[in-house]
């Protein structure tokens, strides 16, 4: 179309204008204009010399979105996109001399770009101007289509590459035209080798015929093809692939090639190959086997196959048997076929006992083992059937007779052992196990004599055996003899053995019934020994040993010591068993009677009473008796021991007297001390009271002349008061009068209070006190803890000059609960080894000089330790003379019961 326009324009434009043809020309001009304006292609005319646009048809105005006036003011460059200007100009110059076509990008008024193809040619108008006519063909749609195609192709390629299946496309000649990434990976083709494999699929020579045939048929019949073939990979390896090809056709129906998918089936092929091999061998084994075998469909129990042995066993012709189901031959109690079949698969690998009916109607016991096997595509149950009818019958009979025998032998107390004609143990009951130590599984099959006979009897047994085996006779047969047997643990036991001979199948077996008499023998021996020992013991004892009936009306034994203690003969008491009680002191008889009743009831008795001997002596006796019961639990005897305790009683009485005296004395002492302290305090109160009063009243009057003297009186009075308190405390503790008053208190508060009240003393001695103590609630006597700490810390401050006193409280958790350890460490004068020994003794101080120098009663440590012990704790001390001392007070965190210390 466009070429015709060019020619037409060219014809018009290049025509001369001789005067005679002006009309014609005009007419021609008009027709040109009509054609020009009507053209659907955009037509532009430019001045070839100036490059200015001179004319445009409406399509061009639309394409460029310009008016004719605008067009006439534009240079050809102005309509090109800036990057296209050089190419446009170059083409423009070319079109001045020759026609041609080039692609360009032009601009619309609004700056949008339009791809165009410009076909241009030179022309000359009526005025003889050299013009260039350009026919602009809008390429926008074309470009869009191209882009879409490219995109679609790209999409397809990406899709194909992403697809895990091996994909390929061939052309009509069967040559590969496209392969996807999976294909390249499968065949091991690297990116740079793609071209090399753009041939045909590398099919194995053996498979090529089939492959080609399938291919051709697909083309001819316009049908997809599917084939399995071996293909070679780049590394030379052959793989089996299943290939499906879909023929492609053009819209016109021309064959374009195939689109195909290939998948690796090498593993399956190999498995199939293996299966085929095993199936073949299985078939061989199945058919030829003499064992009865059936193949059963697990779905419905249909007998799928049966081997020759099965046909013989069941007595059916092959066709009949293969028409049956397993339920037709198996007798299953009260079950329909469905129930039987359901668990068939579960039973796989198990051994089942069943009854099968044969063609002749007889029923046989069979043992069936089922297993699932894969036969080609299907799973079948492989059933091996063993006829156990005879075995079952034998078993039943054996079971029955054995059950009877077992019943007897299992419950027998005696070992029952059987020996077979080879001299081997063939029977061994539970009693044999308990007597001889070997379990049945250990003993049965072992040589009887080797297992049980002690060395020294072995020869005799061996000598007698051949005769027995031949004749069933022997010296010991039919008798009970005492023998020895060796247990599993090597110990020898004495046995009673009853031997008998049994003939089975014409051969002699021996049955031995064996009883362990070791214990009996040992018991007998032990009894003899013990009797002897007992007699020796009893007769040499100073105590009276006796055995009597519970009521005491019959005396079985009494040791000779009775004669010395009671002053009566043993004979007399044997004759009159209650005569010993006649000697009991009248005052004690009633008590003794109570005891006797308890004794008859079977209680053990421990009783003390006095007796009077015939020569008039009074003796204290203690008797202790124990009941003796038989196995049934009946009280049958009373054994007892009677001893004289006169000396002990006397000693005890003296002791009680002495203790009572001591207690009375102590009580008197503490009462005295308590009273005395009261008596001492009353005048002391007056002294202290009046001196305090004096100080106060003189202070009121502003008189201070005697302050110092009054303070001395106060100090001395207070000291005396403390001494009295200490003495009082000690006497209270010693009299057992000290009571703890248990309460909850915070140890940190107690320590703080004590330290605060000792601060002046520490300051006076230029000591530093350091305290390490966390708050902790103790359940103890807070006042007494305070008293102890006051003593210990006070001592530390007192015996240290210009040093340090460190108090450290630690909590300790142990198995016996929570304890508190309070360490009072000073850097004072320390304590010598000699001083340490008597440190906690009352009225003891470092030395006499210490008392004079440091004051104090010397009772503080004694009292503190005693108080501490009352609270369940203690005080210990470590010291280096000249370096300092450490006192450690350790008390439990909690005292459970309020107790009285008695120290």
């Amino acid at each position, binding site marked *: 179309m466009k070429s015709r326009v060019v020619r037409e324009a060219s014809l018009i434009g290049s025509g001369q204008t001789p005067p005679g043809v002006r009309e014609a020309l005009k007419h021609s001009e008009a027709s040109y204009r009509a054609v020009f304006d009507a053209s659907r292609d955009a037509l532009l005319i430019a001045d070839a010399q100036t490059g200015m646009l001179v004319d445009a048809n409406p399509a061009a105005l639309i394409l460029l979105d310009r008016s004719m006036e605008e067009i006439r003011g534009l240079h050809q460059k102005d309509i090109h996109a800036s990057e296209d200007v050089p190419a446009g100009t170059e083409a423009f110059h070319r079109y001045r001399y020759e026609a041609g076509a080039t692609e360009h990008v032009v601009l619309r008024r609004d700056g949008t770009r339009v791809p165009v193809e410009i076909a241009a040619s030179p022309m000359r108008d009526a005025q003889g101007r050299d013009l260039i006519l350009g026919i602009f063909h809008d390429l926008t749609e074309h470009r869009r289509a191209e882009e879409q195609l490219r995109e679609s192709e790209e999409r397809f390629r990406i899709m194909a590459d992403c697809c895990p299946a091996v994909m390929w496309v061939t052309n009509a000649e069967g040559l590969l035209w496209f392969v996807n990434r999976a294909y390249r990976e499968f065949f091991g083709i690297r990116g740079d080798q793609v071209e090399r494999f753009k041939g045909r699929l590398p099919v194995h020579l053996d498979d090529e015929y089939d492959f080609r045939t399938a291919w051709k048929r697909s083309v001819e019949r316009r049908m997809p093809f599917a084939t399995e073939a071996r293909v070679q990979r780049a590394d030379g390896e052959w793989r089996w692939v299943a290939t499906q090809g879909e023929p492609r056709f053009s819209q016109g129906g021309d064959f374009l090639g195939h689109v195909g998918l290939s998948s690796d089936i090498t593993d399956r092929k190999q498995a199939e190959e293996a299966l085929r091999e095993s199936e073949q061998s299985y078939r061989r084994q199945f058919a030829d086997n003499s064992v009865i075998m059936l193949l059963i469909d697990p779905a419905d129990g249909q007998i799928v196959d049966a081997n020759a042995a099965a046909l013989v066993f069941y007595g059916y012709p092959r066709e009949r048997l293969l028409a049956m189901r397993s339920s037709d031959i198996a007798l299953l109690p009260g079950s329909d076929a469905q129930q039987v079949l359901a668990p068939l698969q579960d039973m796989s690998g198990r051994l089942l006992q069943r009854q099968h009916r044969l063609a002749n109607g007889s029923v046989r016991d069979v043992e069936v083992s089922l297993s699932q096997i894969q036969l080609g595509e299907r799973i079948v149950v492989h059933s091996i059937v063993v006829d156990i009818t005879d075995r079952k019958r034998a078993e039943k009979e054996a079971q029955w007779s054995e059950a009877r025998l077992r019943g007897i032998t299992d419950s027998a107390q005696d070992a029952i052992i059987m020996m077979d004609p080879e001299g081997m143990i063939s029977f061994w009951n539970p009693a044999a196990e308990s007597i001889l130590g070997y379990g049945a599984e250990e003993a049965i099959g072992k040589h009887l004599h080797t297992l049980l006979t002690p060395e020294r009897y072995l020869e005799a047994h061996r000598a007698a055996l051949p005769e027995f085996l031949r004749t069933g006779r022997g010296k010991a047969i039919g008798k009970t003899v005492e023998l020895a047997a060796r247990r599993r643990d090597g110990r020898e036991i004495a046995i009673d053995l009853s031997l008998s001979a049994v003939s089975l199948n014409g051969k002699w077996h021996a049955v031995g019934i064996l009883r362990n008499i070791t214990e009996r023998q040992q018991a007998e021996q032990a009894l003899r020994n013990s009797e002897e020992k007992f007699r020796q013991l009893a007769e040499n004892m100073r105590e009276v040993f006796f055995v009597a009936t519970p009521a005491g009306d019959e005396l079985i034994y009494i040791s000779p010591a009775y004669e010395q203690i009671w002053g009566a003969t043993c004979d007399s008491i044997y004759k009159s068993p209650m005569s010993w009680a006649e000697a009991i002191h009248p005052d004690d008889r009633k008590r003794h009677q109570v005891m006797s009743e308890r004794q008859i009831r079977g209680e053990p008795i421990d009783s003390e009473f006095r007796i009077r001997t015939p020569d008039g002596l009074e003796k204290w006796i203690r008797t202790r008796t124990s009941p003796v019961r038989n196995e049934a639990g009946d009280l049958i005897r009373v054994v007892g021991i009677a001893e004289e305790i006169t000396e002990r009683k006397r000693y005890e009485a003296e002791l009680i007297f002495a203790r009572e005296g001591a207690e009375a004395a102590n009580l008197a002492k503490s009462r005295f001390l*308590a009273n005395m*302290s*009261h008596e001492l*305090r*009353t*005048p*002391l*109160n*007056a002294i*202290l*009271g*009046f001196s*305090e*009063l004096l100080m*106060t*009243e003189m202070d009121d009057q502003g008189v201070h002349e005697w302050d110092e003297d009054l303070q001395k009186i106060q100090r001395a*009075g207070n000291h005396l*008061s403390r001494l009295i*308190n200490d003495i*009082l*405390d000690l006497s*209270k503790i010693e009299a057992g*009068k*000290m*009571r703890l*008053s248990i309460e909850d208190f915070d140890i940190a508060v107690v320590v703080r209070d004590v330290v605060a009240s000792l601060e002046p003393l520490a300051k006076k001695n230029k000591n530093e006190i350091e305290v390490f103590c966390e708050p902790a609630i103790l359940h103890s006597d807070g006042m007494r803890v305070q008293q102890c700490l006051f003593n210990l810390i006070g001592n530390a401050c007192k015996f240290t000059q210009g040093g340090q006193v460190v108090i450290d409280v630690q909590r300790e958790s142990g198995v016996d609960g929570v304890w508190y350890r309070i360490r009072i460490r000073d850097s004072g004068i320390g304590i010598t080894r000699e001083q340490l020994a008597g440190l906690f003794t009352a009225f003891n101080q470092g030395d006499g000089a210490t008392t004079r120098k440091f004051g104090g009663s010397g009772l503080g440590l004694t009292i503190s330790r005693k108080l501490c012990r009352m609270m369940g704790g203690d005080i210990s001390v470590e010291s280096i003379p000249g370096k300092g001392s450490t006192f450690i007070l350790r008390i439990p965190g909690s005292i459970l019961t309020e107790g009285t210390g008695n120290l």
Partner: protein
Amino acid sequence: MTRILVVEDDEANQEIVTRVLRREGYEVILAGDGLTGVALALAEVPDLILMDLSLPELDGWEATRRIRANPVTATIPIIALTAHAFAEEVQQALQAGCSRYETKPLVYRRLIKKIKDLLNPPTVAV
């Protein structure tokens, strides 16, 4: 005027306590034994009683019990004065009905404080 009955057998102590209490502005009534103490408590109905425990005729514990037993004197605060440092004796005194106790030798500032606390119990802001 606040009146305090002092039951005390020791003359020196009587004198000291009397002087200390008078100095603090209290009126002092004296009894030399337990029986007199019980009688004066009933006759005078003092504001407070200082009761020695070791007394002739009737000891302090018994005198306290009797004072407590009589509705007229039952609510009078009693402070036991004791030279006995035995805890159980103090305990007995408190059981007999004493409100507080002080151990001899007396520390007067402490005694006065106790008396004031008992006579003017610290008010509790409600």
